[in-house]
């Protein structure tokens, strides 16, 4: 029963947020004279023939894989209370270097693919590691340093693309790196589709989907079932409590950012190894920022992130059909933006609601044992040395009287 109730509560906030966002978007559409139901109709219309429908599903899945990885990269850091806003730079730099490395070597099939993947993960990890080292040794806020490193990474990527790693002829309008040889391509899953008895469409389903699933499971196990994951989540919930119980905060920051960066390095690979085979000026951008949205929507939980990635991918796919139907395709971005904002607000309201319930349940206990007004015998001086750190622990102890009054 309690499990059912808990999952119900966990799902309630995001679902409510999505509904609210859809209502707001519908109101916006009405305001500019577009019938929202017609827009919805266009968005869910996957085509008439089985081949068209399977193609549409593949487009959604192919888009969802990088979004899922991006969300995962952000979420790993988020769970520890670190904001890795630098995912965008990490994956762009990782992809351009992986494309260069993959094109430079010639290895037998699987080894070639693994080599490219390892290069991408290493680059992503190193780039995120800079943020961690600056935070730990110099006290630079990871928010600012990762934003600055985004710009630096984009500059470096454009330098590498136009300089050392350039593969296009001079004067080409779209500049790309050299193509990765066929031994380095990731096989598609279309064989699996026909084995399932579905129509074999012209579009390739990225084989990287399997890698993403494996990475998702590994991250989920790491967070939920290991000592490291426990330390990580504990630090995220209360840094002071975690360090009091013997967690090495500095090492945790560095390890977490390295993992987050390594996952971020994978984001560009589905497109790189599955269809493009080279990095160019037209390569998919903005996945890092969308990853933040996906992680928030999925509440930093791998399964939730998968659902959020599918939802965002579904919305992205709708952009082209909407354009064809004469409806502004930026409706999609509006829906995504309002979803994110509605989700963070809904999460916060739900959290506060849950806490108030827990408090009203525990109020009797507090009244019998607590001494009310005084901060407590073991609390030491009321205003501690670190206001930011003592805050989290101080809150729980002092809310009871006012909480019941309001």
């Amino acid at each position, binding site marked *: 029963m309690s499990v059912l109730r808990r999952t119900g509560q966990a799902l309630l906030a995001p679902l409510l947020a999505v509904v609210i966002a859809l209502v707001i978007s519908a109101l916006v559409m009405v305001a500019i004279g577009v019938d929202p139901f017609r827009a919805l109709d266009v968005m869910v219309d996957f085509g008439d023939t089985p081949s068209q429908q399977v193609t549409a599903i593949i487009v959604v899945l192919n888009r969802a894989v990088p979004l899922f990885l991006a969300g995962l990269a952000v979420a790993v850091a988020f769970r520890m209370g670190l904001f890795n806003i630098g995912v965008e730079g990490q994956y762009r730099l990782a992809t351009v270097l992986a494309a260069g490395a993959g094109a430079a070597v010639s290895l037998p099939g699987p080894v070639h693919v693994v080599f490219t993947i390892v290069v991408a993960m290493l680059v992503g990890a190193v780039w995120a590691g800079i943020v961690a080292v600056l935070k730990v040794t110099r006290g630079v806020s990871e*928010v600012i*340093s990762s934003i600055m490193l*985004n710009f630096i990474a984009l500059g470096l990527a454009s330098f590498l693309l136009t300089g050392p790693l350039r593969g296009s002829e001079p004067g080409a309008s779209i500049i790309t790196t050299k193509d990765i040889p066929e031994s380095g391509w990731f096989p598609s899953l279309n064989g699996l589709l026909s084995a399932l008895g579905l129509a074999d469409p012209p579009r390739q389903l990225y084989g990287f989907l399997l890698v993403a699933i494996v990475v998702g499971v590994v991250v989920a196990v790491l967070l939920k079932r290991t000592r490291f994951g426990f330390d990580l989540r504990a630090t995220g919930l209360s840094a002071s409590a975690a360090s009091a119980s013997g967690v090495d905060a500095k090492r945790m920051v560095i390890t977490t950012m390295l993992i987050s960066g390594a996952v971020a390095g994978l984001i560009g690979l589905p497109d790189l190894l599955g269809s493009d085979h080279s990095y160019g000026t037209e390569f998919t951008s903005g996945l890092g920022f969308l990853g933040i949205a996906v992680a928030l929507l999925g509440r930093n939980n791998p399964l939730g992130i998968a659902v959020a990635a599918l939802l965002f991918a579904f919305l992205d796919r709708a952009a082209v059909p909407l354009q064809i139907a004469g409806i502004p395709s930026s409706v999609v971005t509006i829906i*995504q933006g309002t979803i*994110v904002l509605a989700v963070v607000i809904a999460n916060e309201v739900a959290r506060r609601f849950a806490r108030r319930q827990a408090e009203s349940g525990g109020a009797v206990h507090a009244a019998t044992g607590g001494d009310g007004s005084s901060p407590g015998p073991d609390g030491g001086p009321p205003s501690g040395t670190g*206001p930011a750190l003592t805050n989290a622990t101080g*809150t729980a102890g002092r809310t009871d009287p*006012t909480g019941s009054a309001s």
Partner: protein
Amino acid sequence: MSTAATTTSSKAPTRGPVTELFLGGGRGRRLTWILVGLLVLVSAVRVISGEQALTSSSTMAATLLLAVPLLLVALGGLFAERAGVVNIGLDGMMILGTWGAGFAGYQWGWQGAVLGGLVMGALGGLLHAVATVTFGVDHVISGVAINILAAGVVRFLSETLYVDNPAGGGVTQSPAMSSRPPTFSLPVLSSGPDLLGKLENQHWFLLSDLAGVLRGATNGVGVLTVIAVLLVPASYLLLWRTAFGLRLRSCGENPAAADSLGVPVYRLKYTAVIMSGALAGLGGVFLVFIANIYREGQTNGRGFIGLAALIFGNWRPGGLAAGAGLFGFADALQLRSRTAVVALLLLVAILLAAVAVVQASRRRFAQAITAAAFAAASLSAYLTVDELPEGIVSFTPHITTLLVLSLASQRLRMPKADGLVYRRGEH
């Protein structure tokens, strides 16, 4: 006689007349000396490297153009963060400001553009305030969400209002503004006979540099630049010399204590964040004034650099102005001349060598050796590199930010309750 001598010597026992000249007289005099020293240094580097672009009036004018939007955004950040609300959404509010300026500008001229940018930016600020103050959402998360949302909103608005608009424009840009804002020049000195310009072209050590800087700062200055520069002392006076400012800052330092003294914390936070958005929007207006048109992606992440300038300036108006000036200069230099950026390496080498000497005299040898090593590295880079490629030069301001923050972040002090969600009665 002897008592008088002992009292003066006890006041400044170790300072000789020279040290007294450089370090005495409080912050104002010291700041002046730092500025003079910097000008001499840059002037020397210009003479040695022969890079006239370093202090030319056109570079200085470009510096001013590029620094003012950062200055406005950083001032916006100052109001929000002094009230305890971290504002990562500044870039989004700036984007909204550019769109508002473009929309109002093509219909009602430059005065309309200013108003439009202010209003759109303030709306973004209002959204941030609702999320963070009323609903208690994490400040960084709300800011990121606003950045994502703003990009979508302006694209959507352009798509519905500019496509098929007889005045021009399209999905990514507005019609051109119907009037340009007025500009001012100083008569005689920088226009007309243009005495400063003549002096600058002599390329004399120090004098020409000073003339270049002055001419760049007084020739063809836009009305918004004047307002922005005046806003720096105005913000200082408002925040540090009025009751309103004291109350606003108390919300950023200790909101619970402020609340118990009857300060309306929520209302002040709302006011501060809305002002913050309006200032960021004004920064966007400035960008529209430069291009005479709204274009998508016009901010190019300037909201984030403004935020960095705020931190660089230790959450104070004068400091953030210096930060905005530094980033504006780095940006102007990389736009004007890619070879001049290489000359900056020489400047960095000299500064680091000075740091090494100071650290060695204080017997901090580890720091001294590190600084000396980096000084040698940048000197050798200056001697071997002729011209940096475009991709690398483009992030000069960002790497400057990162370097400065990693060197100075431990001396910075942000408002104590900055970024903490305040719920009345929960603290």
